[in-house]
């Protein structure tokens, strides 16, 4: 569990985070959503200490991160896995070496065990066979997946993912969402995900924080988001006509008006009536 209170952060004149407080729960996928430039990345970087917040408190499972010395932070960080928005792979190393790096640095496994573990995680992100390639030789989406593999290879207690789905096709995107969801449950991780992907929001959004212009605008889960009356949130989430329709359908369904096996004609007609 990561709790943060009253986080403020500005760059010069520009206030990026304005008094944000929230609790990221363990064993759940905690999503931070919001328009581009709303401060998601900055918030995530404040949580892990890559940016120092101007004020506010961050508490990791009861331990105050804000007052920690550099040494204590180093210890805690060995339990953190992070995927950066730009992947941040080590470009002097191959895919395999990248994923193996945390194991080499902190693990004390034999080299055959390490290789086995690396292949296992590369397999889970659908990346078998790219072991010997360099980051410059793989696609953007593949880099993302290598980044995820590197972040989870040590089974971290806290997992931070900055847009794990951007640049991925819908199918791979689902695989990644499922993977993150699975390991979050399996190892009771506290997972924090920045995303704009509506699929992910609906699939794995168990605790959603909607940011608007550096402030917490709305929180809830993927069920509640559909029924939310918050205009800003609705504008953001159901931006397209297609999504708007999908939302209406879900609302009808939830009101018990539509059962799955009814035929389409009837559904739409009833939909109009309700509206």
């Amino acid at each position, binding site marked *: 569990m990561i709790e943060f209170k009253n986080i403020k952060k500005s760059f010069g004149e520009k206030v990026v985070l304005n008094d944000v407080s929230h609790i990221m729960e363990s064993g759940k996928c905690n999503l931070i959503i919001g328009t581009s430039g709303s401060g998601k990345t900055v918030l995530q*970087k404040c949580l892990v200490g*890559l940016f120092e917040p101007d004020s506010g408190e961050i508490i990791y499972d009861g331990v105050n991160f804000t007052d920690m010395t550099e*040494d204590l932070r*180093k210890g805690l960080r060995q339990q953190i896995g992070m995927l950066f928005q730009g992947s941040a792979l080590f470009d002097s190393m191959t895919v395999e070496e990248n994923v193996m790096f945390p194991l*080499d*640095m902190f693990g004390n496994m034999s080299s055959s065990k390490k290789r086995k573990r690396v292949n296992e995680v590369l397999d889970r992100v659908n990346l078998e066979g790219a072991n010997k390639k360099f980051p410059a030789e793989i696609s953007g989406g593949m880099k993302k997946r290598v980044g995820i593999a590197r972040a989870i290879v040590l089974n971290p207690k806290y997992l931070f993912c900055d847009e794990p789905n951007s640049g991925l096709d819908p199918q791979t995107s689902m695989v990644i969402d499922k993977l993150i969801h699975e390991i979050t449950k399996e190892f009771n991780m506290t997972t924090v995900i920045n995303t704009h992907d509506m699929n992910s929001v609906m699939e794995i959004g168990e605790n959603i924080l909607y940011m608007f212009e550096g402030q917490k605008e709305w929180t809830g889960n993927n069920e509640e988001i559909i029924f939310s009356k918050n205009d800003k949130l609705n504008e953001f989430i159901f931006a397209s006509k297609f999504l708007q329709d999908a939302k209406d359908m879900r609302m009808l369904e939830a009101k018990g008006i539509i059962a799955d096996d009814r035929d389409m004609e009837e559904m739409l007609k009833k939909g109009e009536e309700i509206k």
Partner: protein
Amino acid sequence: MTFFTDFGRYLLMLKGMFSRPENMKMYWKEFMHQCNDIGIGSFGIVSIISVFIGAVSAVQTAYQLVSPLIPLETIGTVVRDTVILEFAPTLICIVLAGVVGSKIASELGNMRVSEQIDALEIMGINTKAYLILPKIIAAMITIPMLVIISMVLGIWGGRLAAVASGIVSTDTFDRGLLHGFIPYNVTFALIKAYTFAFIISSIPAYFGYHVKGGALEIGRSSTKSVVVSCIVLLFADYALSQLLLSH
């Protein structure tokens, strides 16, 4: 004002390099990698420059020796002393400031800009210790070696040129070479080499590690680091000569 901020941050960076390694084996691997990059990587250019510097100093000394009162063997003595005292340590290190310095600055700058340094930080690694210290130690071990090699090649180049152009015979040159040799000069040259090695590795590391922005800034910081390390190097050269050579 920025000078003091920069200097303060530079000192903090040096202080931050010392902490217990997370995994000695990985640090050793990185150190070896850097020795290879800095030492072996610069060997070619150092050799070529040394031979030519020696050759040129032999020919030019001969050109200036017009008085019949000065024996020809002086050429050997002059070549030896200029190469050992100034050319091998200072000139080679200025060249290395360009070769090694820009490499260090752009490598670290690229890692900073593409968030690779942040990624290491997040894993709980002291990036100053893991990325900068091995570079500085590798430079301080390999660069003095390169300077010694440069001394030998420089003198050899001078001898070759002097003999090939028919100015002196091998025997005369060698007599001059051995005449009044002061071993302290070599010690002095090595003290310079160690100092310069530290300068041309730590200053570019500072500029590279603290890059902000994008690809453009990487280039800028690498140029700046070469300029600054050259100036500091020449200043240190002057200070050391004053300190250690004045009677």
